[in-house]
């Protein structure tokens, strides 16, 4: 599994400079859906022109509200949907060129997905061992049949489920929500993945056990060398585990950069809105603070211009005509906003 191919094209995303060629990269990734009846010509722009980079052993958080296109990106990366345009490069290789069954299987095992709902994503009729052993049989030809069980126990241990031999024999209904979600991670881990796509993995769980799952993600990253795309609307949890944060709004990437830089110095007004909405008991607050009343925009046949302009407090004339592109505004920190100012020490490029 060595990756010697270097990326042919240069990219405008500032994050590449950190660690050579990325594990996964999207360029101009776009996905539209037809909506309405058969005769309708309306298109919903779920994701438009997204350039995302995920490096090895990196946790990237993708944040945004419902309908911002973050789950669509996960599904594009998992090849559930085909992109309308744009391309996904995995270890430098275009996904549209991955055609043979063996190559497809190998991509699937390298980039598995963990789902949001641990209550419906496990088959209730089978024991825990079933899902994990199937994954091992299909994707791990290097493991002889006799050692599969030991490997299944190992992955359960890795996600903090002990005693593993006991858990393997249980049915999903015998497990709590947090344990089930750990099974989801164990199943993904059984493939020996490079990148796990985690679509809101903790949002269905109690606040008190969420942190345990986030710690599992951090451990898997350091012990197993797995990268994560962590999709969430909870910025505080993104801050807790993620190295880099990408904020989406209405199908556009509006801001990206190292997590701390984005949080401490949010450039895009939408990121600032997201941050102000996080309930933080440690912070004083006046309840009368202006609440944003806006609704998420409709992204059916959008016209050019910034999609946040209807809710934006800083809107200027230009926002109504020109779609802002991501501009580098700080060290590895970019935002798509006409108004945002670059960090003083870095001249705008």
């Amino acid at each position, binding site marked *: 599994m060595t990756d010697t191919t270097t990326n042919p094209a240069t990219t405008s995303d500032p994050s590449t400079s950190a660690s050579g060629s990325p594990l996964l990269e999207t360029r101009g990734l776009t996905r539209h859906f037809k909506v309405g009846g058969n005769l309708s010509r309306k298109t919903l722009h779920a994701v438009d022109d997204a350039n995302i980079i995920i490096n090895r052993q990196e946790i990237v958080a993708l944040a945004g*509200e*419902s309908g911002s296109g973050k789950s669509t990106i996960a599904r594009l990366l998992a090849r559930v949907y085909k992109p309308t345009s744009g391309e996904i490069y995995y270890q430098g290789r275009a996904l549209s060129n991955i055609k043979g069954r063996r190559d497809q299987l190998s991509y699937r095992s390298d980039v598995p997905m963990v789902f949001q709902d641990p209550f419906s994503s496990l088959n209730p009729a089978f024991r825990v061992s079933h899902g994990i052993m199937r994954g091992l049989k299909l994707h791990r030809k290097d493991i002889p049949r006799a050692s599969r069980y030991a490997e299944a126990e190992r992955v359960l241990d890795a996600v903090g489920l002990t005693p593993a031999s006991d858990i393997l024999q249980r049915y999903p209904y015998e497990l709590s929500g947090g344990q089930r979600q750990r099974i989801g991670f164990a199943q993904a881990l059984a493939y020996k993945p490079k990148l796990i796509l985690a679509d809101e993995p903790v949002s269905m769980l109690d606040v008190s056990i969420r*942190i345990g799952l986030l710690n599992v993600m951090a451990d898997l990253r350091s012990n197993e060398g797995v990268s994560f795309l962590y999709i969430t*609307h909870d910025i*505080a*949890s993104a801050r807790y585990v993620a190295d880099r944060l990408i904020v989406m709004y209405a199908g556009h990437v509006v801001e990206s950069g190292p997590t701390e830089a984005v949080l401490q110095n949010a450039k895009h007004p939408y990121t600032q809105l997201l941050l102000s909405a996080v309930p933080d008991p440690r912070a004083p*607050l006046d309840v009368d603070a202006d*609440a944003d009343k806006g609704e998420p925009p409709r992204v059916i046949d959008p016209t050019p211009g910034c999609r946040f302009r209807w809710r934006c407090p800083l809107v200027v004339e230009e926002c109504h005509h020109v779609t802002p592109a991501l501009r580098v505004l700080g060290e590895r920190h970019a935002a798509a906003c006409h108004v945002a100012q670059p960090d003083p020490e870095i001249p705008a490029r």
Partner: protein
Amino acid sequence: MSSAPILEVRGLKVEYESDRGPVWAVDGVDLDVQPGEFVGVVGESGCGKSTMLFAIAQLLSPPAFITAGSVRFMGQNLVTMTNKSLNALRWRDFSVVMQSAMNALNPVKSIGAQFQDAIDAHDEHVARERPAEVLQLVGIDPIHLKSYPHQLSGGMRQRAMIAMALLFTPDLIVMDEPTSALDVVAQRQLMVQIKQLQKQLGFAIIFVTHDMSLVSHFSDQLLVMYAGQVVEVGATRKVFDSPAHPYSRGLLDAFPSINGPKVHLTGIPGAPPDLAHPPAGCRFNPRCPEVFADCYVIEPELYQVESAKARCLLHVQGERPLQRAAGSEAR
């Protein structure tokens, strides 16, 4: 805040019948709600907070039964009331907003028709403009009276539910995690709106949630529940600033902050106990970081800790010497 409480719950016990014997989902809860007060109820899944809410609203269905205690609402005991007289009170004097407001609306009826249903059922003489009025109160254009639920966004559906609850200007609204299906921005909008409506109309709220941070800025009184019991109760600010029970402390430390230094968090290890066979002594003892010998033997009561009350042996006053006293208060 010292006038007669609008709701007085005393020694409320709810039992679920099961094959393994009775499960005490709510085990002796006391609660006072003053007029116009916002009471937050927090705890993990399975701590009995939703069951308690249903018991207060008399909405339990078998196999759940209220086995003891009273719920006095404006002087009347709801537990012993007949269904008929309850129906007269419901919606008019107290109303309920359910957790899955996404699904609580009838998908084949317009919002306006559902409002009319409620009005007809209560035989109330309500002004014709009232439905439009309450929709405006929650920030929805009255044009949506003609809309069907699928035409509204998740946040709007939740607000439509709250509008319905406001139809007859009740004195108490009971809310069961009304924001859990929303993302942070919509959640925040809804919370601010609920609070503003409360200031404007003066109703009292019991708000159940598993996310302690959510109610931190909104509630007056906070109730922390664990394994069917109230483990801590006090003014919200007091509980947040100096939580007296190790469980409240655990809940508070369970979520990361967006401010301040990054610290490694552990959450609360373990799971809530099986309520058919709760642990002897303090029910939190298997998960408690500050557990000592007495915790396995003595069942704690609610002890006064400054202005709050906590169900923890660390706070026993006076006579009985503690086996581990020094340093146990250190956070």
